[in-house]
């Protein structure tokens, strides 16, 4: 349930996980996108409601989360519940796919993958919130083609890593050069990325709509990434 606020003291506007309610027609549109996904058919056959997926699910032990309820809601095409889950439950899944042990061959985690994509593609508030903390990492991956880079390492970030972390951080370039593969002699990226690879990645992210997805959840980040990519592609003489 939503939280009472000054403008909405009786929680009439908010209803789902604190996010504003939308008309049923809009919920139906989102659910239709989930069901129309070509993967959906083989992710969901029929549900015994036996709960084996819940028993196998690590998230279910820590959150009020149930892959069974996700599968059931989808099997019943329960529009209200599926919308609620898209604003809440689906972000509590760790996408470990332990639920694949379903005797009917269902894939609740896969249904959640599809629901997440629909949530992101449509800029649902929950998607923005869930991905908020990841903009630095998304920026790193999409602009450089590698993940967390060595220079993101803070000397005091992980005390349990021991006292060497401070020393490594201070002499990062030296430590990196001590690694045998030459492609790892980098500090601003996780590893060396060839120019050609980067160009290909940019094109893939543009063509597949991954960049558009970013636009739905973080416009600022999208603007920066678009600039970086366009400039690089223009240098290569590629029209976007």
């Amino acid at each position, binding site marked *: 349930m939503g939280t009472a606020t000054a403008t909405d003291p009786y929680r009439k506007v908010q209803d789902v996980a604190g996010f504003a309610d939308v008309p049923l027609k809009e919920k139906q549109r989102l659910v239709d996108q989930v069901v129309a996904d070509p993967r959906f058919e083989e992710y969901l056959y*029929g549900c015994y409601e036996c709960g084996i997926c819940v028993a196998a699910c690590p998230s279910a032990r820590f959150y009020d989360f149930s892959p069974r309820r996700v599968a059931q809601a989808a099997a019943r095409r329960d529009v209200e519940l599926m919308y609620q889950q898209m604003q809440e439950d689906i972000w509590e899944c760790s996408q470990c796919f332990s639920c694949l042990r379903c005797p009917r061959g269902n894939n609740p985690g896969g249904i959640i993958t599809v629901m997440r994509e629909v949530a992101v593609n449509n800029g649902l508030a929950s998607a923005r919130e869930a991905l908020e903390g990841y903009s630095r990492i998304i920026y790193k991956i999409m602009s450089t083609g590698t993940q967390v880079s060595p220079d993101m390492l803070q000397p005091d970030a992980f005390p349990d890593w021991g006292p060497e972390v401070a020393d490594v951080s201070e002499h990062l370039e030296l430590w990196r050069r001590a690694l045998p593969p030459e492609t790892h002699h980098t500090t601003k990226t996780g590893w060396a990325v060839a120019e050609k690879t980067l160009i290909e990645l940019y094109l893939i992210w543009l063509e597949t709509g991954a960049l558009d997805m970013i636009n739905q959840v973080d416009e600022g980040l999208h603007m920066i990434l678009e600039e970086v990519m366009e400039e690089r592609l223009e240098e290569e003489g590629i029209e976007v």
Partner: protein
Amino acid sequence: MSNQSVVVIGGGPAGLRAATTVAELGERVTLIEQRSFLGGTPIAENYASLTPHLHSAEESIGAIVTRLQGLPGVEILTETEVQSLQGEAGDFTVSVSGPGGNRDIAAGAIVVATGFQHFDPGRETQMYGYYEYPDVVALQDLEAMIKDGNIVRPSNGETPKRICFIQCVGSRDRQIGNEYCSKVCCGVASKEAIEVREAIPDSEVFIFYIDMRMYGYWESQIYWPAQEKHHVQYVKGIVTEILRKEDKLLVRGEDTTMGRPMEVMMDMVVLSVGMEPSAGTRKIAGVLGINQNKYGFIDVANPPLDTVSTSRDGIFAAGAALGPADLEDCSSSGGMAAARAVALMRRAVAAG
């Protein structure tokens, strides 16, 4: 061929299989049926197709009747009832009355295949209003509509768009006294649900259940296709009452696995009524002097591996007279009872 017959009482699936088997084993058989036609409850109650294969009931059962009629030593007496029994195993005299008057039949052994009848939903302890609301029907009522190719709401003749089945009506209920599972209703309801979805593609069909009992191959033959291919919605939770709301039916229950109360509107509700011993089964037990169990079905004397012996030597029982049974059970026990009856009769003849 001995001079005596095996008398088979009841011309439904079990009796037809029993009579056919006796004749195939080369002995005389007299099939006694109180109705004017053969085929038993599936035919009398207008079943369109049989579970689980969805073959036509009339064609499937008609094929056994044709086979039986073509065998030597077969006598079929319709509109005939057993009045009394004298003698003992190997040397019975069965007195019957029919259109041709009374007569006595010399019988070496007897097979009772007098079957079941559908539970009368007027007796249920919930509040379903079978006799009150026209759009509350039972499995066999919908079956007749399917057979006619005309599935409509009895109240107004319109095509129903939201239909639900309520399982275990008259079964598994201490209040009613029928503590047993009727075995076939999960399959029959799922079969009818498939047929409704095929006939009315824009319909929504729900099945409210305690637990689905789709044993053996019925799982993949009926249950999975109903859910996966025909999108029949199975909801674990039994309806407590049905209320009329304008021209719809409000169905109240609990959606147990979702953990929430449930109140939904339906155009038509189908009660999945269970099996009770037929009037004929109750009556014949008295006439033949064989034991019934507490539910009124014929008691099996020597369970579990002897499935057809009754409390009286020389009298065997088969099919749904013994308790809830699907068609495969009926056919199997029909054949078994026939084999046991023929064996007993031959032993009696050999003993002189």
